[in-house]
């Protein structure tokens, strides 16, 4: 009988701890599929963040390093400078990458570190139970913006891809999402390409993935996927923001 579907080799057998309807699981799978496709599992080193995906080190079969909050790009820099022939990726959420770790993110991108950054943007702090993120939308209600994000006092959400696209060094920046089959297919292509660029020594890649958080958005999984289309994509347009090849 032909095998039509199986778990990627780069994922362990550990059961994901993510909430029902959370799209971290899909994104993990896409990362693992990219590692499998490129045949780089044995030389890949992943850097896990602080946030909902803090336990990512349990889910990937490659060597893993747990970073402190926001510092994954700096840790990845150290790993990559020490082992330039290995493939190094970070997997980070919006609080980790766009708030506490913004300096490390921008600096690693500006240096053009030959690493791959998977940036999961769900517009909220998930692990601590649904507080305002640097990417929470104007008017978005969270535990720490109970009257809706007021841009007069909290400022506007940060568009990471657009911001990093002002830098010279990055090789590849793309924003994707995983809220329907077509978008998952695009995200798969983007993530694989980001890893391939590193294999080819092209430099810094970041894939921003708009991700659903039904638990903290207070929506059903289905409604959460629709919320990405209706609310997130208008503020965070999908697309390629930098492609040194393209």
């Amino acid at each position, binding site marked *: 009988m032909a095998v039509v579907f199986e778990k990627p080799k780069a994922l362990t057998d550990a059961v994901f701890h993510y909430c029902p309807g959370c799209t971290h699981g899909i994104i993990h799978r896409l990362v693992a599929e990219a590692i499998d496709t490129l045949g780089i599992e044995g030389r890949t080193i992943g850097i896990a963040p602080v946030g909902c995906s803090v336990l990512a080190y349990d889910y990937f079969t490659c060597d893993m390093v747990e*970073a402190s909050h926001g510092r994954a790009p700096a840790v990845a820099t*150290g790993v990559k400078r020490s082992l330039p022939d290995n493939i190094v990726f970070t997997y980070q959420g919006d609080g980790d990458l766009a708030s506490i770790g913004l300096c490390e993110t921008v600096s690693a991108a500006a240096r053009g570190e030959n690493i791959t950054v998977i940036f999961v943007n769900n517009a909220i702090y998930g692990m601590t139970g649904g507080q305002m993120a640097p990417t929470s939308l104007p008017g978005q209600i969270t535990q720490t913006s109970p009257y809706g994000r007021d841009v007069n006092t909290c400022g506007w959400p940060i568009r990471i891809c657009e911001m990093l696209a002002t830098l010279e060094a990055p090789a590849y920046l793309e924003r994707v999402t995983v809220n329907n089959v077509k978008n998952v297919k695009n995200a798969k292509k983007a993530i694989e390409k980001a890893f391939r660029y590193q294999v080819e020594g092209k430099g810094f890649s970041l894939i921003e993935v708009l991700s659903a958080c039904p638990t903290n958005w207070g929506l059903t999984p289905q409604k959460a996927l629709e919320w990405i289309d209706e609310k997130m994509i208008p503020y965070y347009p999908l697309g390629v923001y930098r492609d040194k090849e393209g």
Partner: protein
Amino acid sequence: MQEKVLMKGNEAIAEAAILAGCRHYLGSPITPQTEIAAYMAKKMPKIGGTFLQDESEIAAINMVYGVAATGKRAMTSSSSPGIALKCEGISYLAGADLPAVIVNVQRGGPGLGGIQPSQSDYFLATRGPGHGDFHVLVLAPASVQEMADLTGKAFDLAEKYRMPAMLLADGTMGQMMEPVQLPEPRDPDTIEKDWAVTGTKCQRKHHVVNSLYLSPAELERLNIERFERYAEIEKNECMWEAFMMEDAEVCIVSCGITARVSRNAIVEARKQGIKVGMIRPITLWPFPKAPLRKAADQVKRFVCVELNMGQMREDVQLAVACKKPVDLCFRVGGMIPSPDEVLDAIRKANEGGND
């Protein structure tokens, strides 16, 4: 054996790190340690090493964490305000049991403080620089020769016990020039590190470098095991120098530049017939309690000579269990006591102190 060369303390640290096999330096300028970064910037690219000027001290210590996770020797350096920033990462190094060397060429504080020499990060270094229960090895050089020797020692001890080591120098040590005999070059990569992340090559289970333990029982066990290791270190690795202690009735306790000043004062006091000696701690953690405890049965008083408000004095008082009084001779803010000031403190102690 290498020839003696005239070197600045900061440069001796940098060269000694390279000779000890360190090929990854992540750091940035801050007075009075900038020469370390400058030396590394010049040298590392020529020998296939990494010099990377960080975007912040926090980034640097996390780059060190990344290099250390791969099993390679990594070093960062800074001065007091920058070290405060590194404390986050030092705690993670300790929690993940990673070896690394952090150099602190201290300047006066608190806050932005000044840029002149100080020993006011004694507490910060010896009490565990960061959150959580942990220690780092703390080595305090008192000559340019020791800047070189203790740098190599710091790497070796850090690796042996899988923990961070801090070279705690004062600004004077960083800036002064002295003849130094550099050690022979070494290749530390011969040591097997079965915990490092190097890629599984699809031939082994993945290695995970981590300090997160959500099970309180497991985290408790790991803390206790770490402190069992610390107890071994306290037993085996204490370093100190005794100077003119055979018949001493007053014992100076001092490290770094103040130990150098005290030496001159002791020689002068001896000429005046005062029986004074010195115990100079070289490791500040582990603190050499045993020789101090022993000295407490011999001397009338101790005098701590420090560039802070008496931080090491607390460790001396604990070590001698308050058996004998411990006086304090200090200058702060970048000031350094003269031999005469120390001599006065010795005289006072010899005459019974302020009691």
